[in-house]
């Protein structure tokens, strides 16, 4: 069999198969995955656990957005809808319906999947800026629904959501116990998203991104693939939203606001949308900035804007994208 040349690095999430090591990951990715798990395991001892919980929720959220953005080149500008609706649903399930936390989160995911399936079916026929606008419009509808519906508590949101007892057995009152749950869900979520990205299905998504007309001419019904990617992305955004609601015992309008949709796009872009791990880095950076600069009030948005501008001007491929280019590795 011919030796497969892997020297040419393309600007894409795909990695050359010649590099494949264990678990269907490239060696670079395997090292990064192990590093990530180690980091997640050690972080609560170095930082305030709830801060890391927030980073993990947003990292998963950013990864869920990048499933479409990175692999299909489709920017959903209303991704907060699934995050927020799941946040409300999980909070409502835990507080009013008395669900245990794992069931509350699951309920949130199911709601996000269903809403994602409907909005996705109506959006995937559009491309580029039109797709972004359509998804934003639907997200605004979800926002106004959340503002008006009774169970969401309007301006107040749903407060004092009980963390409850995992499987009805383990109390999550302790931050470290909660952290263990969130970290586990996060790692499982990352592994699942990684698997999707590098599945036979994931390869087809990238072929559609590269050349949609050609993918059709090969017999692929591209809208179905886009739709499935959309629904999966919404589901993982829902997982992030549910985790966030249970952890911070709060679901509010902020979670469904368009600003939230913008922020998660920012995270994916800063980290590098053409890398798998980039959105995690972007999320960590943005959440860290918000935390550090909280005392400066409105200045946070200005600094955030400046960071974004520097990223666009200096490293257009995002932090990991640029780093990967420098190291000639796909990160």
């Amino acid at each position, binding site marked *: 069999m*011919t030796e497969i040349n892997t*020297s040419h690095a393309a600007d894409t999430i795909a990695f050359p198969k010649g590099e494949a090591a264990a678990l269907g990951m490239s060696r670079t990715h395997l090292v990064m995955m192990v590093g990530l798990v180690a980091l997640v395991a050690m972080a609560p001892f170095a930082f305030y656990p709830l801060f890391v919980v927030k980073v993990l929720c947003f990292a998963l959220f950013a990864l869920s957005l990048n499933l479409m953005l990175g692999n299909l080149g489709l920017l959903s500008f209303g991704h907060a809808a699934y995050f927020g609706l799941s946040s409300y649903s999980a909070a409502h399930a835990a507080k009013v319906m008395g669900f245990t936390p794992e069931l509350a989160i699951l309920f949130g995911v199911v709601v996000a999947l269903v809403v994602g399936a409907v909005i996705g079916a109506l959006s995937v026929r559009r491309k580029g800026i039109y797709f972004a606008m359509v998804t934003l419009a639907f997200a605004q509808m979800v926002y106004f629904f959340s503002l008006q519906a009774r169970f969401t508590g309007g301006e107040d949101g749903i407060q004092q959501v009980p963390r409850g007892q995992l499987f009805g057995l383990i109390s999550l009152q302790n931050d470290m116990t909660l952290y263990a749950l969130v970290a586990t869900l996060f790692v499982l979520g990352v592994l699942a998203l990684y698997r999707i990205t590098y599945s*036979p299905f994931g*390869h087809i998504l990238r072929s559609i991104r590269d050349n949609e007309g*050609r993918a*059709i001419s*090969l017999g*692929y019904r591209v809208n179905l693939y886009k739709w*499935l990617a959309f629904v999966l992305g919404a589901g993982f955004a829902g997982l992030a939203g549910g985790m966030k609601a249970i952890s911070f015992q709060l679901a509010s309008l902020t979670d469904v606001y368009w600003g939230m949709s913008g922020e998660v796009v920012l995270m994916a872009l800063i980290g590098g949308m053409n890398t798998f791990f980039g959105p995690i880095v972007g999320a960590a950076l943005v959440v860290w900035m918000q935390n550090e600069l909280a005392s400066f009030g409105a200045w946070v948005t200005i600094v955030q804007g400046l960071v974004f501008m520097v990223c666009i001007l200096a490293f257009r491929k995002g932090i990991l994208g640029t780093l990967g280019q420098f190291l000639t590795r796909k990160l």
Partner: protein
Amino acid sequence: MVDDIALRASGLIMEFKGFRAVDGVDLAIPRGTIHALIGPNGAGKSTCFNLLTKVLTPTAGAIHFEGRDITGLSPANVARLGIVRSFQISAVFGTMTVLENVRIALQRHRHGDSWDFWRSDRVLAHLHEEALALLASVGLADYAGHVANDLPYGRKRALEIATTLALEPRVLLLDEPMAGMTQEDVTRISALIRKVAVGRTVVMVEHNLSVVADLSDRITVLARGKILAEGEYADVARDPRVIEAYIGVAHA
């Protein structure tokens, strides 16, 4: 009695806001032949081509593939029947490797759809041998690991053909396969088309008349949306109406 017409178009009409780009075209392309559509700019070749590939739906008329009416099918479903098109500008999956390009086509051909987002792409490894054989058949075996965008133009077209062949198409629709090519590439791709046309039906739109003369069994000349002449190249080329349409006749 088996109908030996692979692709039949009857009474095709395509209107764009009152303008008839294709005006009553009938085509009958026998199985196993190479058929060329030619004509001056604006004759309706590309519209005709887009009708055959289902990118456009005709205003009136019908298209049959081996006796089956395919007028209402979507482009993806037409491809699934084995009618596969190429594109004027090279159509490769640019960020994917050459091997992956062909593998995407094999994936569709061997597995139908790939909804399996829960499986590792290692399950696709069994397609690599076949993909490499296809690449070898178009002279790209040494490039398997290269990213498609890094290939020179002529090689991209060869990759496109390998990708198309992975589907084992029954009808190949080639949209100006020689557009923008150097003479060296033209020679190579001509030979390739001749090779892959064995046992297949090929319809092509092409401007390069020497290629058309060289490759095609029959040609159809279009002008202003209508068929001007049809037959073997040598006969059609002598037809005064064709000469007039191409070169124009000085007024007396």
